[in-house]
């Protein structure tokens, strides 16, 4: 019986393994290259390190010091944080309110407005640049952090609202009745009951949104411009590519700097990540 199940799952496991390797091999190459010296990189491929992987002396963090200090990637890292964290927090927060309203409050036009918001997901964001950018320029919001927070919040809201609404709609109605009898106003019900229960959905939306904003280049380029004082990592790395396309040691180190935070976020919150994707689809 067990053997049969094992055999039946071989195709699935093979597929997963292939995908994992497809992702892991370049990442490993990136990591190894980023800690080798420029001359070593030029003379031999990263895979030549593999046989003597754990012998010391061949690695250094010099490349990292280089990109972070001389190439200004440290500043960009902070910029990225300063863009991603507030933008993610604002959109998750706003989406929670909207989701609660759409899931549990009765008002005319509820279905239509919810459909409009969810429908906004299919609008390609590139289409919005030309109409919105002049408005940004007129208001003096282009090139500012609040400007990009607002942009990311707007682009993230449909998906976030949809996911959180899905979760909140699954909260049993009796809880709301019970809260009403206990004397909780809708706002208090939202804060004291709905939000704590929705933590898994909020966390997963937070992760999705955070990763998306962290990895975003286009929105930042359009609304922030290329000034180094506000440029996020993605922008600095793409500039680095243009300016120092031959210096692999710097590019790989820079790439790893940009990967570090998403990896940490993902591994520390992965249980929410999976639960969030399943939110609403499985009745617990």
């Amino acid at each position, binding site marked *: 019986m067990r053997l049969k199940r094992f055999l039946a799952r071989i195709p699935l496991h093979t597929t997963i393994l292939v995908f994992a390797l497809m992702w892991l091999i370049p990442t490993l190459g990136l990591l190894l290259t980023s800690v080798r010296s420029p001359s070593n990189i030029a003379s031999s491929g990263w895979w030549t390190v593999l046989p003597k992987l754990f012998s010391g002396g061949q690695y250094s963090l010099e490349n990292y010091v280089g990109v972070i200090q001389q190439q200004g990637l440290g500043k960009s890292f902070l910029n990225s944080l300063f863009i991603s964290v507030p933008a993610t927090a604002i959109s998750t927060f706003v989406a929670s309110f909207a989701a609660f309203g759409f899931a549990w409050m009765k008002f005319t036009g509820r279905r239509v407005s919810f459909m409009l918001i969810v429908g906004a997901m299919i609008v390609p964001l590139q289409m919005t640049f030309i109409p919105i950018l002049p408005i940004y320029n007129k208001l003096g919001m282009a090139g500012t952090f609040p400007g990009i927070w607002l942009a990311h919040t707007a682009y993230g809201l449909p998906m976030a609202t949809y996911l959180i609404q899905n979760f909140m709609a699954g909260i049993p109605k*009796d809880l709301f*009745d*019970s809260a*009403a*009898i*206990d004397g*909780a106003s809708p706002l208090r019900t939202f804060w*004291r009951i709905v939000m704590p229960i929705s933590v898994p959905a909020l966390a997963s939306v937070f992760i999705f949104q955070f990763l998306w904003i962290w990895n975003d280049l286009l929105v930042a380029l359009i609304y922030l411009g290329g000034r180094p004082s506000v440029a996020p990592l993605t922008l600095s790395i793409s500039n680095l590519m243009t300016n120092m396309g031959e210096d692999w040691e710097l590019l790989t180190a820079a790439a790893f700097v940009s990967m570090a935070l998403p990896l940490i976020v993902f591994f520390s919150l992965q249980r929410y990540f999976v639960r969030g994707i399943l939110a609403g689809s499985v009745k617990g």
Partner: protein
Amino acid sequence: MAEVTLTDITKRFGDFTAVDDVSMVIEDGKFTVLVGPSGCGKTTTLRMVAGLEDITEGAIQIGERVVNNIPPKDRDIAMVFQNYALYPHMDVFNNMAFGLKLRKTPKKEIQERVQEAAELLSIEDKLKSKPRELSGGQRQRVAVGRAIVRNPKVFLFDEPLSNLDAKLRVQMRTELEELHKKLQTTTIYVTHDQVEAMTLGDQIAVMKDGVIQQYAPPQTTYDHPTNQFVAGFIGSPGMNFLPADARKEGGQTVLSGDGFNIRLPESRSGVDIPSRVIVGVRPEDLDGPMQESTDALLMTVSVKEQLGHSLLVYGTIAGSQVVASLDPHRQVELDTEIYLSVNLNTVHVFDPESLTTLI
């Protein structure tokens, strides 16, 4: 403590009338059960008393006050829900204290009242547990506790025991009974289980299609049902119904069909009845098997169930499905015909048109 008065209460959802012109007075301190099949409007009625559902027409009074436009929190009621509705992220203490905290009750008093309620329900060692760590019975105790701590004028129960397994249900039923004896709070209790209704209620209101069919003490609904629906709903197994011809013979009313001939005593024959009627006989009012006689009912046996305290025999009398509850030591063979006697003092007669009770 308060009397609850429903005056001409109607609730419509679009074209559908869920509760139709219901009037009843729930006396102060009494345990009143609303019972009926699903969709009969009993839960909607309860939710209107709670304020969770708008009232389309009519008025609800709690004590002296008309509460139609008063929000649930200000009605001084507490409600226990079928699936407990505990706040999953709060521990038992906070679940019970939530309502008190929102009412700005002093901390010390909250502590005391929760402790007292927890002891009353023997969950004082669970105060720090989350609902998911509790069994179904414990969860329902917490839900009851949450209602008790508020010390409300009226308790509302919405099928609180139907999620529990059979044994626990009986146990919790007794506990609720004792609790009511101690607290003497006016209680409205909704259930579809007529056994719960019979055992718990001081008064029971049998509902069907949004209308109260009978509102009376439990024994009255059993002994003197107002119509065929109540007669069939109250009692388990349910009452048997046999179409019959009725005629007067001397001073006696005679009810006859294919295989039976029931002569009601003169004391019960004073009522004028139509020539076609429905005869109602409770399974426990049948006895047998006995020798063939003119007064006996001829039953074809198809199934029997030995319950230990009684023997249920299923079959047909004059083509109608019937069940008889007999002495468990009687011998009954399957697929045979047996003669049963009937208790003439408890036979009911219903009008086939209006379904109301004639005798």
